[in-house]
């Protein structure tokens, strides 16, 4: 293993992680809801009565983040190298996969591991494996 020390940003990664943890803690303690983003977006698409309000507000908060950030500070880089067809394939897989698994990086990865859920640990290990394997194939076998 070969660590890219120039790319590694331990300070901002840890600080950002604490904020993500704070947001998840806030939503479970104040609203009694798990901050699982695929579940919230999926629930919103199901148009569940009684959940629409908070689900819509949470997604709106995610969307408003960059705009409010930009009022005070330059936005950090968002580099998207994937082509549109690849982004479409990736979006479809992420959409279907997270709904079947009932969770993504936030719901299983952050909240599930914080709850010490074995199901979420299995999900997190599986999607991490899927991500590592895919990048290995794309970058090192196909050389893209």
């Amino acid at each position, binding site marked *: 293993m*070969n660590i890219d020390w120039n790319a590694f940003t331990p300070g901002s990664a840890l600080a950002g992680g604490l904020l993500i943890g704070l947001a998840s803690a806030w939503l479970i303690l104040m609203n009694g809801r798990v901050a699982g983003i695929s579940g919230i977006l999926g629930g919103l698409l199901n148009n569940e009565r009684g959940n629409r309000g908070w689900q819509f507000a949470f997604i709106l908060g995610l969307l408003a983040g960059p705009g409010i950030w930009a009022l005070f500070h330059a936005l950090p880089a968002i580099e998207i190298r994937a082509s549109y067809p690849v982004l479409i394939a990736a979006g479809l897989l992420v959409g*279907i996969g997270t*709904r*079947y698994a009932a969770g993504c990086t936030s719901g299983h990865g952050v909240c599930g591991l914080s709850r010490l859920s074995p199901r979420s640990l299995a999900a997190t290990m599986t999607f991490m494996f899927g991500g590592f394997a895919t990048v290995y194939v794309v970058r090192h076998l196909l050389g893209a």
Partner: protein
Amino acid sequence: MNKATFSAFIAGLIFSFGLLLSGMANPEKVLGFLDLFGAWDPSLMLVMGGAIAVGLPAFALAKKRQAAVLGGPIQLPGKRALDKRLILGSLAFGIGWGLAGFCPGPGIVASGALEPGALVFAVAMIAGMLGFRLLERRAS
């Protein structure tokens, strides 16, 4: 807008700031973590570690409480089964994550920054979720 709705907005906003600050709204940085056999960027591990460090005591407290601060029950997932849906779904998600470097949260945040590629990803993700709903309805 009631208190609970405003509270959920604040939670989403803090989450969004966390993703931006940590660099996780940037797919290239996420792919740097997933490239275990190339020049590896371990940052994502610290993001998860930091989030779980706050999450652990919060969820321990949530399990003990009867109700949320703003009222209503605390709704924690009750499923325990490690089934095929969990594993195959997570595998499909992981492959999609590795292809573009986007998972749902960063895809939505980068869409909020009006990045065209993120909007394309987000529309496809929503289509995938609607596809799941269609398949579920047919099955039932």
